[in-house]
């Protein structure tokens, strides 16, 4: 009676998330909403190029946000995530969380952990979020602070401890670079010590801020081999206690698979535009002007657009094309 598909998320690979195929479904199963591009940090590798003062000029207003959330709930989308930028700086953040949770959907918050005060954690627990995923790219202050410009390791780890004290399920996300990769094992140990139930990682993408900082970030293939060896070892070590999720697959391989098996996932940008998938520049709808049903129908068609296949083919010759992901193409 059942056929299983699915699994895997995390912010490192843009090809993240739900692998249930979209054909035949009446609506997406998962909406990943980047609620704002504003952020208190300016991370070296940020795929969204978020940072202080980086909110889009045309980000959705309160009425638009709740109109769209209403459509998502009416279409029974079972699972949403709020990310950014930093979602907790959005002026309607807690109202949005309250609305989604009160309508019965599961909600994950993806945050840099700098606003996880005891009061905010207690509020998230009270509202019933499914999990809070905190980015922790290092096991030490020196690596974390180098990556998370304007960030502070102890603030993030204190925030995670506050989540734990409040009883909010914790996930950790880790982006590898040449200067933190040696800490991957220690970072997984730290995640477990802090009370996480899941740890996500994968290859860091050449896009967004990472394009400018690539010379400070890029790992060699040899480093990736060691990185994935450690991940395999840690997966076994923590089996039954904490899940270690990672994509070993390269971006190109993942996109080729997606071309024929699109995930039941919509990526919503802060201005209501909808992307086919994070790792491609294609926009398949605009929630300010179109209904979710229209966009979902177009999502199916847009994956068949020859420009999508061409872009993926071109990536095999020029992996640097991922640097153009923010130059949106409407399909």
């Amino acid at each position, binding site marked *: *009676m*059942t*056929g*299983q*598909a*699915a*699994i*895997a*998320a995390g912010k490192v690979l843009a090809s993240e*998330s*739900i*692998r*249930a195929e979209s054909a*035949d*479904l*009446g*609506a997406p*199963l998962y909406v990943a909403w980047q609620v704002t591009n504003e952020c208190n940090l300016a991370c070296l590798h940020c795929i969204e190029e978020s940072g202080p003062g980086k909110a889009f000029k045309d980000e959705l207003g309160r009425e638009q946000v709740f109109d769209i959330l209403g459509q998502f709930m009416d279409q*029974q989308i*079972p*699972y949403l995530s709020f990310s950014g930028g930093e979602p907790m700086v959005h002026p309607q953040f807690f109202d949005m969380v309250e609305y989604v949770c009160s309508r019965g*959907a*599961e909600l994950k918050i993806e945050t840099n952990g700098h606003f996880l005060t005891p009061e905010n954690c207690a509020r998230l627990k009270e509202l019933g979020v*499914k*999990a809070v995923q905190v980015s922790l790219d290092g096991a030490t202050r020196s690596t974390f602070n180098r990556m998370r410009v304007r960030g502070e390791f102890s603030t993030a780890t204190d925030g995670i401890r506050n989540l734990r004290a409040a009883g909010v*399920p914790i996930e950790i996300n880790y982006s590898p670079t040449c200067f933190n990769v040696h800490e991957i094992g220690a970072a997984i140990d730290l995640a477990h010590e802090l009370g996480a*139930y899941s740890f996500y990682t994968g290859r860091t993408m050449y896009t967004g801020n990472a394009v400018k900082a690539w010379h400070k970030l890029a790992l060699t293939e040899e480093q990736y081999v060691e990185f994935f060896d450690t991940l395999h070892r840690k997966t076994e070590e923590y089996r039954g206690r904490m*899940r270690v999720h990672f994509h070993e697959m390269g971006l190109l391989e993942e996109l080729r698979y997606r071309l024929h098996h699109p995930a*039941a996932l919509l990526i919503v940008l802060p201005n209501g535009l909808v992307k086919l998938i994070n790792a491609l520049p294609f926009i398949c709808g605009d929630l300010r002007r179109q209904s979710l049903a229209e966009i979902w129908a177009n999502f199916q068609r847009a994956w068949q657009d020859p420009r999508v296949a061409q872009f993926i083919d071109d990536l095999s010759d020029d992996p640097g094309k991922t640097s153009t992901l923010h130059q949106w193409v409407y399909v």
Partner: protein
Amino acid sequence: MRLSKYVKFREEKFGGVLFETRSEKVFTLNAVAAAVVREINTGCDEDELVKRLKERYQDRDGSIERESRAFVADMRQKGLVQD
């Protein structure tokens, strides 16, 4: 019996989907499996669920009962339902 805390169900034209949002696994369901989940959502126990489905599908050869019980056992084993 009820669906576990992090499990969501949605009706689809082909039956339905069960989404275990903690592990992020999705299970596609045929029409009978979707009917099983609908009954679970009423809060009934397994025997009552089977009785209702046998009546609804006029289960002459016992196949509905076998399939339903096997499906419920499968869901229990996967942690998708709680008693």
